[in-house]
């Protein structure tokens, strides 16, 4: 293995290959930064350009593009509260509050370092752990996917630290939105209100843009100015070296989030959109100061970005070893492999070792290139956005959001959905129901329903089909994780109260911090 690994490394050091990785990473970052253009769409758009290339160059370009696109989604999430891809949902939760505090540069640096570490750890897992991890992922059945979704939903308990009740209502609203359209199992057409466009369901990206960005645009237009705290000119400027040192001084968060991303990436169908939320939740739970999350905590940005770039390497584990794509862009790259007559499996590593390892090393090179390129481009973009007068920033964001919502299905209806959800999100925020919980429900709804119904169907021969959700070993582990995750904010609160010597409340009382979820 080490011999072909060395060959892959040497191949990547060729100037033409480095240039290809640079082009892929840069164009991926540019595309990922545009709300509405997901990494999946970008990789699909790029495929025809690779037809004329040899298989190695084509795969290297696609891999670098994918890595860059996942990272690029963090820019708009941090700067204008518009996650460029669903993988950056959690990045916006703390990245945008950092921008509002005048610390967007710090958030960009955090996202860059997180993406770099996540990308590298994912690639290391891909090189050394591919076969055993891939076979383990096949043990996950519908019941386990249902519990994975439930585990994701327990994040609401962590997100809605102000009012758990309102957080749960937000999450359930998201789940309800996820049921619109054709059912994932059975094919029932539900809650379309007679509009055929809704048969495809509520599209995730327009919903994301609506729930996160439109309330901010409304505020900008109404206030005619940025928040007073958004640009703090009195504060001394952070030095790049200091920012990097501060982020690297918390290696546990970086490594834990990258591992979470890698593991979630291995599970087919989950991907970066789930990984970033799970890692964010774990970062908050492990933090000594969880109350700062949602209000501009750099660990939140780092966790989310480490995890989503960790899914890149993780997702290729089942793709290359079993032919089961871990994430949607992996499915496209799998198609390119098949197109070139390369069949995934253990044989692929033996018969086409140099190609496979050149591709894997190119992913790592792309992660390394993201650091200088991202720091220059990201900080440049950040300074540009900060310097832009607010009367141009607000309509500029609107122009981008309209494209983002429209481009997915070339449908004006999606733009209407974006606006309707945005206005609803603004009004719901007024009564303390934050957009983050709604997004969480929307992202996990289909996974939960598919797991639930398929789980019942596959165990329909049992006397009580429901029991299969509680008897499988991996399910039991996941149930325990769900219970722990849901109970953790209460345990932590009691522990804090004990430390301070004041009585704790059994349930967090209603407060006004929910807005911080999406700010």
């Amino acid at each position, binding site marked *: 293995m080490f011999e072909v690994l060395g060959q892959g490394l040497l191949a990547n050091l060729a100037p033409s290959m480095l240039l290809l990785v640079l082009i892929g990473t840069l164009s991926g970052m540019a595309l990922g930064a545009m709300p509405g253009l997901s990494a999946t769409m970008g990789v699909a758009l790029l495929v025809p350009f690779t037809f004329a290339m040899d298989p190695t160059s084509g795969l290297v370009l696609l891999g670098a593009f994918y890595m860059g696109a996942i990272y690029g989604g963090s820019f708009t999430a941090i700067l204008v509260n518009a996650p460029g891809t669903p993988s950056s949902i959690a990045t916006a939760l703390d990245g945008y509050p950092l921008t509002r505090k005048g610390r967007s540069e710090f958030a960009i640096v955090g996202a860059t370092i997180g993406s770099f570490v996540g990308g590298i750890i994912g690639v290391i897992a891909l090189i050394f752990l591919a076969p055993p991890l891939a076979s383990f992922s096949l043990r996950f059945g519908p019941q386990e996917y249902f519990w994975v979704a439930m585990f994701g939903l327990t994040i609401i308990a962590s997100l809605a630290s102000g009012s758990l009740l309102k957080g749960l*209502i937000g999450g359930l609203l998201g789940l309800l939105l996820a049921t619109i359209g054709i059912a994932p199992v*059975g094919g029932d057409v539900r809650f379309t209100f007679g509009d055929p466009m809704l048969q495809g369901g509520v599209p995730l990206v327009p919903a994301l843009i609506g729930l996160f960005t439109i309330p901010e645009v409304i505020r900008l*237009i109404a206030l005619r100015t940025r928040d007073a705290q958004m640009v703090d000119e009195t504060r001394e400027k952070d030095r790049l070296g200091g920012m990097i040192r501060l982020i690297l001084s918390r290696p546990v968060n970086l490594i834990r989030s990258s591992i979470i991303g890698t593991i979630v990436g291995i599970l087919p169908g989950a991907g970066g959109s789930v990984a970033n939320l799970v890692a964010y939740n774990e970062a908050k739970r492990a933090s000594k100061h969880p109350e700062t999350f949602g209000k501009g905590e750099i660990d939140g940005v780092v966790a989310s970005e480490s995890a989503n770039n960790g899914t890149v390497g993780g997702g290729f584990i089942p793709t290359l070893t079993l032919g089961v794509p871990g994430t949607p862009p992996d499915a496209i790259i799998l198609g390119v492999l098949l197109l070139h007559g390369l069949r995934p499996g253990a044989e692929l590593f033996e018969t086409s070792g140099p190609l496979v390892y050149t591709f894997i090393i190119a992913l790592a090179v792309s992660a390394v290139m993201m650091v200088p390129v991202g720091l220059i481009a990201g900080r440049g973009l950040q300074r540009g956005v900060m310097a832009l007068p607010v*009367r141009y920033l607000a*309509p*500029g964001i609107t*122009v981008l959001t*309209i494209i983002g919502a429209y481009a997915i299905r070339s449908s004006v209806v999606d733009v209407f959905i974006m606006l309707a959800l945005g206005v609803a999100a603004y*009004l719901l925020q007024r009564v303390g129901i934050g957009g983050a919980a709604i997004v969480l429900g929307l992202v996990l709804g289909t996974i939960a329903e598919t797991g639930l119904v398929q789980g*019942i169907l596959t165990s329909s021969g049992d006397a009580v089909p429901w029991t299969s959700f509680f008897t499988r070993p991996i399910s039991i582990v996941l149930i325990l994780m769900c219970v722990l995750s849901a109970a953790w904010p209460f345990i932590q609160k009691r522990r804090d109260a004990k430390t301070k010597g004041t009585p704790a409340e059994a349930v967090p009382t209603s407060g006004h911090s929910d807005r911080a979820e999406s700010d």
Partner: protein
Amino acid sequence: MGNIIGGAAVLVICLIFWVQRDYSSEYGGIFPDSVLIALAALSVVLIARGLLRRQDTGWDTTGRLGYRDLGRALLLLTAWVVSLPILGYFYGGILFFTLVALLMRTSRPTWKQILLDLGVAVVVVGAFYLAFTQILYVTLPELSL
């Protein structure tokens, strides 16, 4: 009052979805019905909380906007989106970009400022329009008057 209004609004949403229920397969309704019932139950709890705990207003007061400013923002955004199928992305974008930029000025704009805002609108909207239609081959809504 915020809790009562919020809870009532969510209950209305539940009711709208409930009357739309029409399942053809055995398991088509298992998930949405569970969600609807749980959501309705939690909304009732929220309303009850609003009624019982009067001291907790339930409103999120951070970043509260005046009705007039909020109305202006909503009107502009709605008009922009609704006009999209008629004016298209390019012309509608330039018109509403300019309008928003002008209305966000705090003093009465001069002709020079109007031309500046119009110029910025043409450059920004035009750049996005060309990038998407000519480079990324994403079709955008066109003028259909």
